């Protein structure tokens, strides 16, 4: 029973981590609190649905198309919508407020476009919905895929960011955007790249989630909320933080649902959120950020 719960918790946490990673990169590197993040996820989910239902292509193959599209979309949004804000902002606080307002507007634009294109109905298809035996627990293959993808992306990007020159430049911009140009780093380009990367990660998350979760054009907000909790809990801009915070949330929800009551999962999530923030105000890995 305990192993079953543990594995179920990790798998659920994998989804949360996957969803949050793009947001943490966008917030960390581009210093943009992207409130339209969830809408990007849903847009990718719609794209996966179209690829699967109209073209009959597996959503995993669809990733080859959809993830670069997410990247391009992030790139364009930064280039057209956010760069003017970055340019005119003097300090960090003004940019944060402006970007929140701008992406809040973007949220409604994307949502509106999806409403017009797909209507308000529930969309759902299933792909890879069969059980896989993991240490005696039956786990849905598509959810397992989400966990594996979260671990791979999280681990891979973490290594890239910490062990390559390119990653060091990105981190430099994240820590001191004003000073980075002094050592020859193009801060604007790095921020744009970080934002676009976040868009690609959101698209990956959307594709995988669409395999097992029912969504509507207006369900993006739910993902933004969950991702925000994970990001803040893990430490803004930290991939390892997002990964571990996501897994912790999944475990807490599953353990509370099994041993206490499913009605208290939300309460437990916010309780642990509060506890972690009291203990480490900048998030689990907040201090470790360099």
């Amino acid at each position, binding site marked *: *029973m305990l192993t*079953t*719960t543990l594995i*179920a918790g990790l798998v*659920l946490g994998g*989804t949360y981590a996957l969803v949050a990673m793009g947001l943490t990169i966008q917030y960390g590197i581009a210093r943009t609190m992207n409130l339209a993040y969830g809408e990007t996820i849903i847009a990718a989910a719609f794209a996966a649905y179209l690829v699967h239902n109209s073209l009959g292509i597996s959503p995993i193959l669809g990733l080859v198309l959809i993830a670069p599209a997410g990247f391009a979309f992030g790139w*364009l949004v930064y280039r*057209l*919508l956010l*760069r*003017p804000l970055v340019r*005119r902002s003097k300090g960090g606080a003004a940019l944060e407020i402006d970007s929140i307002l701008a992406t809040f507007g973007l949220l409604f*634009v994307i*949502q*509106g476009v999806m*409403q017009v294109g797909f*209507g*308000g*109905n*529930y969309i*759902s*298809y*299933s792909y890879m*919905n*069969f*059980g896989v035996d993991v240490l005696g627990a*039956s*786990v*849905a293959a598509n959810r397992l895929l989400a966990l594996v993808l979260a671990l791979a992306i999280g681990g891979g990007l973490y290594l890239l960011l910490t062990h390559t020159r390119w990653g060091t430049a990105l981190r430099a911009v994240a820590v001191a955007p004003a000073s980075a140009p002094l050592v020859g780093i193009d801060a604007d380009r790095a921020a744009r790249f970080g934002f676009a990367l976040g868009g690609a990660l959101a698209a990956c998350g959307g594709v995988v989630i669409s395999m*097992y*979760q*029912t*969504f*509507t*054009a*207006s*369900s993006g907000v*739910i993902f933004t909320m969950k991702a925000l909790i994970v990001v803040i809990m893990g430490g803004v801009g930290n991939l390892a933080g997002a990964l571990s915070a996501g897994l912790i949330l*999944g475990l807490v*929800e*599953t353990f509370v*649902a*099994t041993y206490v*009551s*499913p*009605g208290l*999962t*939300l309460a437990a999530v916010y309780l642990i959120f509060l506890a972690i923030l009291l203990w480490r105000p900048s998030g689990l890995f907040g201090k470790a950020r360099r």
Partner: protein
Amino acid sequence: MGLSAMRAEERADREDFSMTTVTRRRALRYFGMSVALGAVIAALPSAAQDRTSVKIGYAISKTGPNSGGAGITTLPNYVLWAKEVNDAGGLEMPDGKKLPIEVVEYDDRSSAEEVVRAIERLATQDKVDFILPPWGTGFNLAVAPLFDRFGYPQLAVSAVTDKAPEFVKRWKKSYWLLGGGHDYTSALAGLLTKAAGEGTINKKIAMISVADGFGIDLVTAARPSFKDAGFEVVYDVTYPAGTTDFTPMINEAAGSGADTFVAFSYPPETFAITQQAQVAKFNPKILYLGVGTGFPVYGEKNGANAEGIMSLGGIDPKNEANAAYRKRHQEVTGQAPDLWGSVITYNSLQMLQEAIKRRGLDRDAVADELSNGTFQTVLGEVKLEDNQLRKLWFGGQWQSGQFVAVAPVDREGAAPAILPKPAWK
């Protein structure tokens, strides 16, 4: 288009706010606004003239969290009905004259405040002749006092409430057509009793419900229904709306020894539970799920795996009028109606149409006719009892690709339920 506009905006910013550009654009914008405003004013009612149309208004959730439900059960029927009536020349009046329907539509954006404001606007500013109800139990209750105050009959369909007899006393022109929670749970208890009597299932039930309007109403009604029928509820928990992972609950239910699993769930959860039960190889003898099971997409998506799953609602596949309605619905709106409230919604519109034909546009007379008249609709012969539709299907089951009515078991036309539920494919 949006992007190019943004790009222009940015370019203007870069051009040091060249004064002329900005002013010209502003001027254009104001001009555009005033044209739009003028068009709205021109469209306002021209009361004194001879009547050339009947104004029908409604506020519905086209956006927001309720749009999923409203977009399948309610709005397509409003569209279909208005189109059919207008294609036939309009609504027939008692003198045989036909007047086309003019629709006034608002999006309530799934906000209770917005729906109240829109109904008020329909009554006081648009001065429509009749108002069709919004979607959802909560919204129908929110607007009921307004319908009553302005004297409009309210044919509430997508509202499941046990308090209908009380509401009818409070709001004389309100009609409740989808029964109450207790109707559904006692019909289910009846079906379970029959199955237990035949020795198909044991007398234990595992039950989960969403901690929100629908789930609370239904589970509150279900507990006494099951107890009176001699069943023991061995697992009874609620979960917050928006829950996506049901593995813990499914595992607990599987370990509880109950042959019956009941979930009073909302559509996203209904879909999730169906998938996750398959993954966990959890195959109870009776699997009863909530809203969403009766959506056509549920049958399409789950295919052979839907076989044997039960829920609220259901239709009689032998009813030809209903079959014809389903075909028209598909043709006109491009989507199939659901298998629970859709046909009742369409029936309510037919009742309204017939009542207007018999009594004209006087709302009091129409309300009186709705309360006391007998109507021939897509459901067959319909007569309301105390402003409520009581002859309903309260339980259905997926049987070879159709969501067939199986409860109440003693109603004529009920198909026998397939028990136990077949194994997952």
